[in-house]
């Protein structure tokens, strides 16, 4: 039996429409053999958590460039927990000030990728950190 493919939800919460990064990442993860579901723009944390559950993903990749990360990320983590998705990784990419990163991690974000990160690095992170699931 072939190994289960890593499933990732690429999500774009908030009002921001800059989806270049989200789309490039979605394609790079697909090219790396993962199954990727892209939510489209302007998803509320509730919609993202519901989609994560429905699609039974291993990770949620959140793209935020607007500065709303401190409001939106903890909310997404919380909603995933409420739905019993404790193993689901939440990774964040975008314009995130250095000083916000420790707090986001304390709140349950697994990794924050800043501009300039190669897609390979994200692929590697997911391969190394997803898979502890049954």
């Amino acid at each position: 039996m072939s190994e289960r493919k890593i499933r990732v939800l690429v999500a774009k919460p908030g009002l921001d429409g800059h989806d270049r990064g989200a789309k490039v990442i979605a394609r790079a993860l697909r090219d790396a053999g993962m199954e990727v579901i892209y939510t489209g723009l302007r998803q509320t944390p509730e919609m993202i958590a519901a989609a994560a559950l429905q699609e039974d993903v291993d990770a949620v990749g959140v793209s935020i460039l607007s500065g709303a990360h401190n409001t939106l990320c903890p909310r997404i983590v919380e909603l995933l927990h409420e739905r019993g998705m404790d193993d689901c990784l939440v990774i964040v990419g975008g314009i995130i000030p250095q000083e916000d990163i420790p707090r986001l991690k304390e709140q349950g974000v697994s990794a924050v990728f800043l501009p300039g990160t190669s897609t390979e690095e994200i692929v590697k992170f997911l391969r190394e950190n997803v898979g502890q699931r049954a």
Partner: protein
Amino acid sequence: MPETKELNSPAEASVERWERETLEPVLKKRPERKKHFETVSLDEVERLYTPADVEGVDFERDTSFPGEFPYTRGIHPTGYRGKLWTMRQFAGFGTPEETNARFKYLLEHGQTGLSVAYDLPTLMGYDADSTLSEGEVGKCGVAVSSLADMEVLFDGIPLEEVTVSQTINAPASVLLAMYLVVAEKQGADFKKISGTLQNDILKEYIAQKEWIYPIRPAMKLVVDTFEFCTRHVPKYNPISVSGYHIREAGATALQELAFTLRDGVEYVQWGVEAGLDVDEFVPRISFFFNAHNDFFEEIAKYRAARRIWSRVMRERFGAKSERTLQLRFHTQTAGVSLTVQQPLNNIVRVAIQALAGVLGGTQSLHTDAYDEALALPTDRAALIALRTQQIIAEETGVANTVDPLGGSYFIESLTKKMEDGALDYFEKIDSLGGMVEAIEKGFPQREIQESAYQYQKAVERGDQTIVGVNKYSMEGEQTEVPILVINEGVRDRQVERLQRAKSQRDSGAVAGALEKLKKAAVAGDNTMPATIEAVRAYATLGEICDALRDVYGLYEEPAF
């Protein structure tokens, strides 16, 4: 040897001689650094450009003189010797009070025009108290929910004298109305007000994706502003057709050029179909381009833009007035090129990009601040960005002569290549039925996504260098520069002013004006008069957009 050899022109023959006698022995001894040399758009650049490369370019027909058709060398015969470009720094954050203070700071330091950045709720037509605005109020720009905010934003700034550009797209007609009502309250004459409304909704569906309504009613709103401004605010530019965001989303220089100009053609077409006279409204259409890293490619792009526009206006629309044929544009350096790593390097990038904009003949310029990959700029970073322009303008000598690169074999050849490539895209888009149809089919969106992905791959292969990121990076580097932090209390203060404005207004007048607006929208009448009436009554941005949402519905992006 190829059989066509005897058909070679003398110019080609002399290039062949040089290659044989001088180049080849050197290449044998020392090969070049790499096989292919490419622009940032991944377009191949030749080793050398010679008269053979410009044989298809006729000086009188294609290059000509500045101030003369086809305006390749600029729209003013004196270039920047007459008037420098307008230094117009885009600014906006937090509350209207904070942004008003930044505007005054920039004007005090020699900035010559204003440019307003609105926050995401404003751009999407939501008030600060909407649940959708949570976490976003004042973050990416200034928060404006009603006329009460706009009055504070322009307090002490005479709108008859200062030209203001507003980056506002989906709700542009509402913000234009607010701007006009503030001007009216200052006692300004509409006939004297000038400024620019970004108001380019097509590029929202293509690239920036801050839309509200479906494409066709959104286009109707744009045409309403054309019609209204042509009649009542004749010095105002109701649209700035923008390639900037198309480029930032990943387009190549050529795609930026082609899609932007084709968007421009689409607006002109819609205006003509609404009964407007080309030579009356097109002179007030301006453009907005990106200034990216590849210096010569950018300069060629601006020169080609002017040439294409003048020809298309004459050939396709029978334009006669000089002003209609002259493409005027604003330039902003490429935000996407700025790096979080070693952020002070960004000052250098911005200076070189800005220089390309100037050598391309831009009418106005925004230089990004070095900290913009991290956050909105601090006062200090914004000031260095402005000083960069002043140094280019007043120290380097580049503004002393008109189109200094005109006649360069490389630049002229690249300009021609840009023009030909853009016209090929025009043909493709025309064959799809026009730009609205092309967007509905996802054509420009897919082209851009593909380019963005190819560029990312090129960076990851190391074919494209980003200094400090994929080359010359520093492990454990301290990137710390002071950044602007937007206070989370902005939303509370904005909601408070919103509630105060609502409690003091005549709610009957608001309801009546909104009803009138809906009726105009349903009937297909011009919505501007009713929008202005609603704004005067302190109807909020969210209320006005909701009225139109009721009539027009919402845009849903198909999956491409």
